[in-house]
Every structure is written in structure tokens, then in C-alpha cells.
């Protein structure tokens, strides 16, 4: 247990010490929130969907949790290159515990990042339907963070170096984000796009957040929870398995 704790703490310390990175990673969500939020607002309103800033805020929060968690998982690659990974791999601690410590640490950092974006969106004018459901939305953020931190570890364990990074970025992380309904409503889509968005785990995370923050959603929130729990367990098992197979 103490191994999980110390590795979790390590991720947190690294996050707190990289202030420049914290601020830098707020830039992109801010741009989406302000440029798209205000830019597409008139069109969205005309289409009869209401205020786009309200709609997009949970999506942008979900996006920053996604990026932050998946990158923390992929941070494994940096540890591989800078050597710290070896130190943990030969330690007399079951590798499952090391993987869980990393995953929880990465997920915690991602949730903090998501909360920062939530604060920024509140400043920008986002207003949740009810304030008492905000903690429930936080639960969905935690779920998204764990799902994708575990996925990041699984991928990071399978790659030898950063050469595959662009590939992962363009063919996995970006599609997960764009096909999740973070930017557009999931109702009334064409058959193919509708089907694809249903395969994307992030769809359920962001839908769950909308259910909590806006009191409107495409799926039943209970289904969102079920899907996230299922996919999350699957990815944690997958990540632990891939991590236990690492050779250096």
C-alpha cells in the first residue's frame, strides 16, 4: 500500500513543481471555451439549442481531464528514457501496485487540472443548473481520469520510445476528443457518426457531466456510470498486464 501512496505522491509533486506546464495546459481549453464558446454561440442559439458556452463547458472540462490523464500515463515513456522506470521495475513491490500508484497519481493530477478549467469556465460565465450536483460531476471527472490514465499506462508500456507519440496523438487522443460529443450534441446524428460516438468512452463521461451540470443528457446517467466503470476496469487490467510485461 505504501508503494502505491509514494508513487501517487510523486506524480503530485512533479505536477506542483511544473508551474509553467500547469499554466501552459490551461491555454488550449481556454481557447476552446472562449473562441468556440462565444464564437458559435449565435449559431447554436438560432438552431434552438440554447447557450453554447453552457453546453461546451463540460466538454472542455472533459477534454482537459482526457489530455492530462492520458499524457500522465504516457509519462511512463519519459521515465523509461530518463531511467527512473528501471528503479521501480526492479523493486520488490508487485508491479500491479506500481501501475496503480502511477495511474491514481496521473488521475489525481488530471482531476485537479479539470477543476482549474471548471473555475476558469465559471469566470467566463458558465453557470451549472444546480450547485449541489457539482460534486457528482466531479465523480464523472474522476471516472474519466482513471479510464484514460490507465489507457495511457497501457500504451506507454507497449511503446519503446516517443516515436509512436504523434501517431497516438493524431489517431487516438484527438479522435477520442472530437468524437465524444464534447463539441456537439449527441442527439440527431447520422447513423455512422452516432455509432462511432457510442464507441467512445469519453462520450459517456462528458454526457454524465452534462447530466449533472446542465440537467440534460443524451444517455441515461446510470448507463454512463456503468460504461465508465466497465471500460475503466478493463483498461486498468489491460494497463497492469502490459506494465507487468515491460522489459528494458
Amino acid at each position, binding site marked *: 500500500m505504501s*508503494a502505491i501512496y509514494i508513487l501517487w505522491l*510523486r506524480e503530485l509533486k512533479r505536477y506542483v513543481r511544473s508551474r509553467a506546464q500547469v499554466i501552459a495546459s490551461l491555454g488550449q481549453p481556454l481557447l476552446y471555451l472562449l473562441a468556440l464558446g462565444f464564437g458559435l454561440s449565435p449559431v447554436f442559439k438560432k438552431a434552438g439549442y440554447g447557450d453554447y458556452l453552457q453546453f461546451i463547458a463540460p466538454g472542455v472540462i472533459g477534454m482537459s481531464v482526457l489530455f492530462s490523464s492520458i499524457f500522465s500515463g504516457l509519462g511512463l515513456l519519459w*521515465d*523509461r*528514457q*530518463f*531511467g527512473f522506470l528501471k528503479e521501480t521495475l526492479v523493486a*520488490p513491490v508487485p508491479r500491479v501496485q506500481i501501475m496503480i500508484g502511477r495511474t491514481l497519481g496521473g488521475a489525481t493530477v488530471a482531476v485537479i487540472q479539470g477543476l482549474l478549467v471548471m473555475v476558469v469556465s465559471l469566470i467566463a460565465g458558465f453557470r451549472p443548473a444546480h450547485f449541489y450536483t457539482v460534486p457528482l460531476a466531479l465523480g464523472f471527472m474522476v471516472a474519466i481520469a482513471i479510464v484514460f490514465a490507465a489507457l495511457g499506462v497501457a500504451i506507454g508500456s507497449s511503446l519503446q520510445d516517443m516515436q509512436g507519440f504523434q501517431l497516438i496523438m493524431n489517431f487516438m487522443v484527438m479522435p477520442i476528443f472530437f468524437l465524444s460529443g464534447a463539441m456537439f450534441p449527441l442527439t440527431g446524428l447520422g447513423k455512422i457518426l452516432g455509432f462511432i460516438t457510442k464507441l467512445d468512452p469519453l462520450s459517456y463521461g462528458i454526457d454524465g457531466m452534462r447530466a449533472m451540470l446542465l440537467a440534460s443528457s443524451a444517455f441515461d446517467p446510470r448507463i454512463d456510470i456503468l460504461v465508465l466503470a466497465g471500460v475503466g476496469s478493463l483498461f486498468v487490467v489491460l494497463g497492469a498486464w502490459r506494465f507487468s510485461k515491460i*522489459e528494458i
Partner: protein
Amino acid sequence: MIKVQNLVKTFGSFTAVNDVSFQVDEGEIFAFLGPNGAGKTTTIKMLTTLLKPTSGSIELNGLDPRTHQHEARQHFGIVFQDPSLDGDLTAWENMQIHAVLYHVPRKAGKQRSEELLKLFELWDRRNDQVKKFSGGMKRRLEIARGFLHTPRILFLDEPTLGLDPQSRNQLWSHVKNVNAKEKVTVFLTTHYMDEADRVAHRIGVIDHGKLVAQGTPKEIKEQTKTESLEDAFLALTGSTIRDESASSADQMRQFAKMWSGGRR
């Protein structure tokens, strides 16, 4: 304590370790010598569960690191040849993570960390991030960390690389000390023949993945009819210089340095 039989490791068509067999007894200091790229580090990686052998068998304290990875890891400690510290954490934090991962009791861990950091003259800098350290300081921290717990077998992969004579001296007297007092078996590699001559009870010389000689320093000198271990080493392995291709890890480090101040 360590028993290796017909060990082979191939990477594609390249054979890094070719049919190597040797044995290290409990309480022995065994030096594994060889030119660059001879297969020393690959052998250590297989002994320490970081790589799976292609064929052959290994026993560490009676355990097979292939099938009993976790149990085998309880019996050894290692100082790696290349860096394995977390640069964003302080020297003290790096020590504490190690203490937790190796189940050193809290109080003992703190006390030993202090002793070791003082011994390797890092105490004053304990609260600085490791990325601000010089190469020699990082190396010293790496070694101090390796001594934080007392394993049954200690692997030292070129521990003196980049160390000044003072620290080298400190290191070897510490190694001899734990070996004599706590019967720790030591398996080391080095390029400094005088060190091997002075410290090791027995020596194995590896070249092109094959073990070419084995015995006490005296036996090896007699076998090659040479005066010093350095001459014996050259007689055994020839005087051509070896190339080691840069691994993907080295290329990446280069890239990372170029690309950012260091982090993710």
C-alpha cells in the same frame, strides 16, 4: 548464490550473450569484466528480471528470476550503469521513495539516508532537485541510494563511472564493508582493472557475448602469463576498440534535451 547456465540472449540476429555459464558463491565479490558491448549489462538485466533470457537458466538464491520475478526481486539491490533518478524530485525524496519501495522501516530509512548522504557528501544539497546536480553528484546519489537497504546480492553496473578518486575510494571501502560484515554477495562490472584486482575475489572476462576466462585475479594473470590484470585483459580480449550502437534510449534523451527543458 548466483548460478548461470548456458545463458543466451539474442536481439533479432544479434547475439548479445552467447552460452555463458558461471557461478558466484555466497559472500563472494565477483567482477564481470569486458570491453564495451561485450554483454555485461545485458547479463545483469537478465539476472535482475529486467530482460528475459532467450535460453539457459539462472538461479538467484535458488530462485528462477523468470518464473519467480517478484520473489527474486526481494533478494537483490542494484546500482545501474545509466541514470535512474527522478530529476524533478530532491535527493532526499529520491532516497525516501527507494526506502518505501524496498520496505526499509521508516525510522531506519531516515537514519540510513542521512548517514549515506553525509558519507557521499550530498547532505547539504539534500533538498535540491536532482536535475540541478552535476554528473558526479547524481552518480554519488545513485550509489548512496543503492546502499539504503541491505540485499543478499548487490549488483553494481560500472558504479565508478564518472566518479572522482575520493568517492571511488569511499564506494569500494563501503562495498568491502557490507561484504565482510553482512555477507552480501557482490556482482560488479567495471572498466578499471586495478579496482577489480583490488576488490574482487573472482573475475569473469566476457567478450563478444562469450565468457573467455574465469578465476581469481591471480589465476587469470598466470593463465595469460601477464603481470597486471590490465595486460591480462588485453591479452584475452585483444586491443581493437569496440563500437556500441546508440540505443533508442540514448537517441530519445538527445531528443528530449533538444525539445524541452527536460520534462515530459
